[in-house]
Structure formats: C-alpha cells, structure tokens
C-alpha cells in the first residue's frame, strides 16, 4: 500500500480521454500532445513496477482495495503479480507506439485518440484488477471501442469473391470494414456473454461456502468448487476468453477485424487485446479453477496446436498482407495457449513471454503493413515487389519482426517459442510438439515469402515515388524493433518476474 501506481496507470488514459473531449477538433497538435501525455505515465509506472516488484516476496503487490458494492461482494481491488506486470509493460509500450504510428492520421483525430484511450484504460483495468466483476467491466470497455475504430478509420479490401460461395461473400460484404467491425464486436461480446454467465456461476457457488458471495479473486481462490460446476465454469471461461484469444474455431473474427482495422487498432487488438483473452484463460480459467483446468488441459492444448497449424496454413494462403499478419497472429496465439496447457514451468513461462513477444512483434508487423498500405495504397502482395529500394528502413524492420516471428535466436520470439516447445516436450502430451513444429516451419515459409514479395526484387515501375517511414513513424519502428532485440538478448528483464508469477501459478495448479 502507500502508493497508487496502479490507479495512475488506470486513470491516466481515462483522464486523457476526458481532456480530449474538451479539446477542439481543429487543434490537432494539442490532441496529439494530450494523447501522448496520457501514454507516458503508464510507461513510467510500468518501469517502476518492474524495478520495484519484490521478487523474493512474490505474490500480488501494489495492492489497492476499497469496496464498491459491498452487498454484492464487488470491490475495486487492484494488484499485480509477475505475470500481469509483464503485460502492463507490453500495454504501455503498445499504447505509446500506437499513438506515434497514427501521428499523421489527419481524420477525426479527436475521436480516434479518445476511443483509443478508452480502450487502453480497459486493457490496463483487466490486467490490474483482482475483483472479477471489475475485471469483466474493464474487459467490456476494452472490447467496444474497436467497433468505432474499425468502422470509421478502417480500410476495406477489394473482395475478389471467388469459388462456389462467392455470392455469400458479396451478400454479407466480407472484407468491407463495417462487416469486419461488426463481426469482431459481436464475436467478442458473445464471448463475454459466456464469461458473464461463468462469473455468476462462480459467484453463486461462492455464496454457498463463504459467508457472503463475492467476486474477489483472492477470496474465490479459497473456495473448493464442486467438480462438475467447476468444469462447466472452466469451459465457459475458456470459450469466452478464448474467443478473444482467437482459439480455433472461433478465430475468424480476427483476420476480418484486424485486416479492416487502422494501424493503431490492429496494433492494440492483435498486440494487446488477444493477450487479454489468453490472460483471462490463465487467470480466471486455470488459476481460479485448477482441478477443472487440469482435467481439461488436453482440450486446451489440442485446440492450441490446431490453431498453430491452421493459422500458419491460412497465413501462407493469403495474398492480402493484412490478412497474412492477422492469420499469423492466430497461429502465434496458439503457441500462447499451448504453453499454458503444458502446465510445466518452462511452458507457462514461455506462454507469458510469448504474449509479450508476440504483442510487440505483431504490433510492429501491423504498423509496417499499414505504413506500406498507406504509402502504396495496395494490400495485394502479388502487386508489390522491390519496395526495399524505396523504403529500406521499413524493409529492415519488417525483416526483424519476421525473423522474430519465425523464431530466430537473438530475438524475443525465439525465447518464447523455445520455452514453450521445451515445456511441451516435458508435458503429459509430448506429441503436441510435432504439429507445433510443422506450424513453425510453415511460419518460416510465409514470412520469408512475404519479405520476398514485398521488399525484394528490382525496383517496381508501378510505384515510382514511395517514401520511407516519416519522422514520428520511426519512433514506433525503433521502439518496437528495439524491444524485440532487447528481449531477445536480455529476456531476464521480464522473465524474472514472470518466473515468480508462474511459480505461484503452478503451485496453485498443484504441479
């Protein structure tokens, strides 16, 4: 107690949104300044959290707790452990770079930054809440602004409409940004309907054991839920949060939504929000209901390897660069869920590290493909080629992100995938490793082919005057690319606290 680091993290984007409300539309410079000002305190807090987290003591620290609706057992209970600290760090970095990457947006900036700030407040709220009801509220807050972000600032692809079902694509307007926005929102809110029912189930059950039904995570942990109820609740949480984590077969909102989203939208969503889903499965699914999770880990892991292979195959199929990156996210989120399902120290550490590594990497890739699209106005890879001559800097960063994506040693992605695969090998289901490795191989194929198609080759006569990244846009690239390298060479920066958090997680799981 004593300090209010977590409230600062939460309030600063909210305050930013409030201030933005009163800044006039035309004052673009002020709008951007306010947005940046709301992004800096969380970054400072993230650094402070990493530095000041007591590794020896472990557990949840920096707690703040005051009652909100005591009659229903709802309170504002904020605290972080080693796992959530890593994710707060990730979120604060992505928020800052999401603002810098849309520096030259020039369209309804006020609303854009406002909704972005609200979204970020929701994300921070989820990562630092220990009251599950509050957790749910913030979860909803994080999901909704995407609708507006995609609907207004998104981009539509030209639907080719091939194959026997082409007419359905035309009929429902697949690929159009409004379609992507609505699909994403409805999928995620359907997921949150599952979560809500699961939460109420847990709440009602807790009322049978505790003197007062509660949503407090720490108190709920002391409740031994009946096995059948716990399994139902676990499945509700797994499906509910899993939709956001992009688990197969509920992943299809992700390519449509992410491909239609503006740069900052995809960065936030693929970079951070999908982690929110994985974090929910970890925290509310596994950690709250350990026995049920152990019973059903086989399901989680098997679906995860389907994700890895399916996502990679689908990514290899795409011509649209935004769809390619979106499907690669589906594949990489499979790695996150696989690590979790191994229930081994290495596997879960890798899973959490992959959340961070993939968050940064996919944010970098999305910002790059959006920059490429913004400058060339083409999303079809087959029409590109030779862009490396015109935009060498962006090509270099694309290669860094791509190599991290395929797991090259020295970059963050390697650490994560290595740990996950190690954990898989020592888990109860070592056979998961083989499809996972196939997925990793296919990833290498499509990443290298994408680099080849976009950037390599002779200068392209169709695009005579492509500029490289512009001033502030470099900030995004350098920060994200730099983080990938730093975490690749010095994973302990985050892995130390992750290790403590995962240790307690596994203790709770009885492993």
């Amino acid at each position, binding site marked *: 107690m004593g300090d209010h680091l977590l409230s600062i993290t939460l309030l600063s984007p909210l305050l930013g949104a409030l201030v933005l409300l009163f800044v006039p539309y035309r004052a673009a410079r002020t709008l951007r300044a306010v947005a940046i000002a709301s992004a800096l305190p969380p970054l400072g807090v993230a650094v402070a959290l990493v530095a000041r987290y007591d590794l020896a003591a472990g557990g949840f620290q920096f707690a703040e707790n005051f009652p909100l609706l005591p009659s229903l057992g709802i309170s504002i209970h904020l605290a972080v452990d080693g796992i959530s600290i890593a994710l707060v760090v990730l979120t604060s970095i992505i928020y800052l770079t999401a603002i810098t990457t849309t520096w030259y947006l020039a369209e309804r900036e006020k609303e854009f930054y406002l909704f972005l700030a609200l979204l970020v407040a929701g994300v921070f709220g989820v990562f630092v809440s220990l009251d599950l009801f509050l957790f749910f509220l913030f979860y909803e807050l994080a999901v909704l602004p995407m609708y507006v972000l995609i*609907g*207004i600032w998104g981009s539509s692809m030209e639907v080719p409409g091939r194959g026997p079902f082409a007419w359905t694509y035309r009929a429902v307007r697949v690929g159009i940004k409004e379609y992507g926005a609505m699909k994403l929102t409805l999928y995620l809110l359907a997921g949150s309907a599952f979560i809500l029912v699961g939460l109420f189930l847990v709440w009602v059950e807790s009322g049978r054991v505790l003197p007062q039904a509660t949503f407090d995570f720490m108190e709920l942990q002391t409740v031994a839920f009946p096995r059948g109820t716990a399994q139902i609740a676990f499945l509700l949480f797994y499906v509910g949060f899993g939709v956001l984590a992009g688990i197969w077969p509920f992943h299809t909102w992700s390519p449509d939504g992410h491909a239609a989203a503006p740069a900052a939208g995809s960065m936030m969503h693929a970079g951070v929000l999908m982690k929110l889903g994985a974090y929910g499965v970890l925290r509310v699914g596994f950690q709250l209901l350990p026995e049920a999770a152990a019973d059903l880990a086989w399901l989680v892991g098997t679906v995860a390897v389907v994700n890895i292979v399916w996502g990679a195959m689908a990514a290899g199929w795409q011509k649209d660069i935004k769809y390619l990156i979106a499907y690669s996210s589906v594949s990489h989120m499979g790695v996150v869920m696989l690590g979790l399902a191994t229930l081994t120290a290495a596997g879960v550490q890798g899973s959490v590290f992959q959340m961070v590594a993939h968050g940064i990497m996919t944010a970098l890739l999305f910002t790059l493909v959006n920059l490429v699209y913004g400058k060339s106005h083409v999303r079809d890879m087959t029409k590109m080629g030779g862009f490396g001559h015109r935009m060498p800097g962006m090509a270099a960063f694309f290669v860094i992100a791509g190599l991290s994506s395929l797991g090259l040693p020295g970059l963050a992605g390697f650490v994560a995938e290595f740990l996950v695969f190690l954990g898989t090998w020592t888990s109860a289901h070592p056979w998961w490793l083989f499809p996972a490795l196939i997925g990793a191989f296919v990833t290498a194929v499509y990443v290298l082919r994408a680099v080849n198609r976009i950037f390599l080759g002779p200068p392209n006569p169709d695009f005579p005057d492509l500029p490289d990244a512009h001033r502030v846009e470099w900030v995004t690239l350098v920060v994200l690319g730099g983080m990938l390298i730093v975490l690749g060479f010095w994973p302990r920066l985050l892995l130390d606290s992750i290790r403590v958090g995962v240790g307690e997680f596994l203790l709770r799981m009885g492993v």
Partner: protein
Amino acid sequence: MDWNAVALEVGVLALAAVVLAVDLVAGRGTRGSRKSLYGLAFLGLVGLLAYSFRLPAGVAFTPALVQDAFALFVKKVLLAAAALTVLATYPYADRRGWARRSGEFLVLLLFATLGGMALVSAQEFLTLFVAFELLSLPLYSLAAIEKSRPESPEGAMKIFLFGSVSSAVLLLGLGLIWAATGTTFWHEAPSILPHANLFVPAIALVLVGFGFKVAMFPFYMWVPDTYEASPTPLVAFLSVAPKAAGIAALFRLDFEVFSLHAPDVTRWIAILAALTMISGNLLALPQTNLKRLLAYSGVAQIGYVLLALASGSRFGAGMALFFFVAYLFSNMGAFLAVAALEAAGDEPTLHGARNLIRRSPVLAAAFLAFLLSLGGIPFVLGFWGKMYVFLAAGRAGLWGLVFLGAVLAVVALYYYLNVARAMFIVRDDGPAVAVPGAILLAVLLCAVLVVAGGLVPQVFVEPALAAVRGF
C-alpha cells in the same frame, strides 16, 4: 383510512382538474397559454415526485388500496415518466400541428398516470380492474391525438382493439379467481380452496390480459404499429409507464396470489420470458424505422424483466424495480431523442439519423448512451439492470435463461450498433439538427441519469432493494 396512501393519486387528479379548468378558462388561442399549460403540468408532476420522497410507506387508504414501499417506488417511476413526457411534448406538438389539443393531451396523460398508480396500489380484484381500465382508456385516445395524419387512426385502432380484448380477458380471469376463492380481496382467500382447479385457467387468462399491456410474447403485435403511428413523446410514455405498472401488478399478483395456489406459475413465466426475449430481439434485427426498432427492443427488455419475475424471489422483484428505473431513463431517452429528430424535420429512420454526430453532437452522444444502456454495456445504467436481473435468475437456478439472455443481449447489440453506425460512421452531409430546447432538456436529463447511474448504481439499487423488503 390514511390519506397518505392516496396523496399522490389525489395530487395527480387535482392537477388534471386544474389543467382542465385552466385550459377551459384561458381558451385555446395563444402559444403562451399552451406553453404555460405544459409548464403547469410539468411543475405539478415534479412537485408530486419530490413530495413522494417524503411519503410514508406501508399505509392503507382502504383494505383495497394500500401504498406499500413497492407501490411507492413504482409510482415514482410513473411520475418521472409523465413529467419527462410533458416536458418534451410541447415543441413536438407545436411542430406537428396539434398543439391546439394540449389540454386534452395533458389531462388524458395525467389520468393514465393516475390509473397506473392505482394499479400498483390495488389489493383487490375490482380495484385492480378499474385501475387497469383507467390506465388503458386514456392511452387509446392519446394514440389518436394526431388525427390529421393518415396512419394515426390505424395505430390507435390497433391499441384500442387489442387493449379492449385484453381487458375483457383479464376480467374473465379475475372472475374465475373470484369463483375459486369466493372473495375479491386476495388476502382474505382461504389457503385451501374448494375449486383450486379453476386457478390454472384463471392465471392463464390474467397473464394474457397483462400480456397485451406489457407486450409480452405473443401479444406484442400491436406495439410496433402503434408506436410508429403515435406521436413520439407519447410513445416514450407508452413504452414505459403501462409496462412498469403492469409488471409491478404482475409481481404483486405472483407473490400474493399465484405462487400460493399454483406454484408452477413461475415455470410458465420462465418460458414466456424466454420467448419474449427471443422474439423481441430477433424481430428488431431487420428494422430500419427507429420507432419500430425501439418497439421490438422494448419487447425484448420486457423479456428480461419477466426473467426477474420468473426467479420468483424478493431479490428478483427488487432487481426488476431497478431494471425499470434503468429502462425508464434509457428507453424514454431513446424515444425522446427520436422525437427530437422528428421535431427537427427528419424521419425517424436510420437514414434520418445519419451522420448525427456532425449534425447535432450532443443529441448523438446522448442517443449513444441510451443505446448502450439498452444494450447492456458497462458503465451505463442499463448494464447494471441487466446484470442484476441475471444475478437474480442465477440465484434461482435459471442458468439456461441467463445464458439465453446473455447471448440475446449480443444479438441486440447488432441492431443498437446499427443505429450507432448510422449516427457516427455514415458520412453523409445532412442539415444541422436544431433540437428544441425542452426536448433537449428532457433528453439530457435522461442521459445524465443514465451515465451517472452507471457510475454509481447504488443510488438506485439500494432504494429498489429497500422497496421489496415488505414482500
């Protein structure tokens, strides 16, 4: 005989008499006199609302008319609904050319409010029926008040036909209950009945009778047509007040009569709740007319209240009361926002609301708050309403219905977001919307309460829970 028990009713009656007298004396000429008539009615209603907070609960005027805390709470909701309607009507009537009939409008509206208030106080079947009729009859005429518009008589005819049939059915049901119990005072009914088997058809008929009034499945057909054809501020009232009063009366009947003699009734209500939620939400999906869309969404909302009724618990009743507060401000707010659009000369359709964020940012923001609240999105009042209803149903073990309701809430979001899309995303330059001051004030009042109530729901939850302690 405690006059406190009918103080609000007497107040509304007196207000109606004064409005009628002033309307007669002052003549129908000037705009100023019409405006002051609305001002008089509004101030009177607000005064009564303020006064209602000082009234004691649990007092009886006669054994047939008792004002317990539950009734008092619903009366506050009714008064607030009437006050907001009166506030927003004048500019609308003025622009649509029926301001001349202001006197009739106000008097009939006040009588309907009076009927609703008596309905929730009633403890005896004949009183209940008279109150039910007093609530219904003025609304039939009010629906036709824009009689120069061609579609208006159609809507009025629909509500009249369906309403009068439902009254007849209700009367038959009440008669059967009387036949079974031998008394019209339900507290005096013996616990073991000679003709208990009459109770099942009786309850079915009563449910049908109220079903038309509150627009539950399958008796909602009149709702979209009447809403579409009636003046919008009236629709705002129509969509809240009769439903609140009807559902409250159903709660009382369920707790004090049905559940004693036919415990199975909660199961029927659970099925009705499911069907009402499903049909309302699905039928709202293809609507492009905002009034029809909100009409079907209102049907769906009633499904959620029925879910609370099906939980059969005191907690559920409290949560239904809270839900009605949320519904009052969100739904009235939404309809009044549509009224503002119409008063400014736009159609009440998705097309009419296009690009509203540029044409009237305040109205667009308020409308968005109402839609989110109706959709049950956190940080606005409606979310808490839905959540508490789900909690009540979960406590009663109705997990299937909770799940259904949660999934349908997502379906609902599709049509609410479609409206939001028209307002915020469609880029089509329309003329600026000049919202009349009075309507804007009513809309903003609702918006402030929806948002503030979403941040501190205790303000409404605690009184609602306190109001059902007597059950």
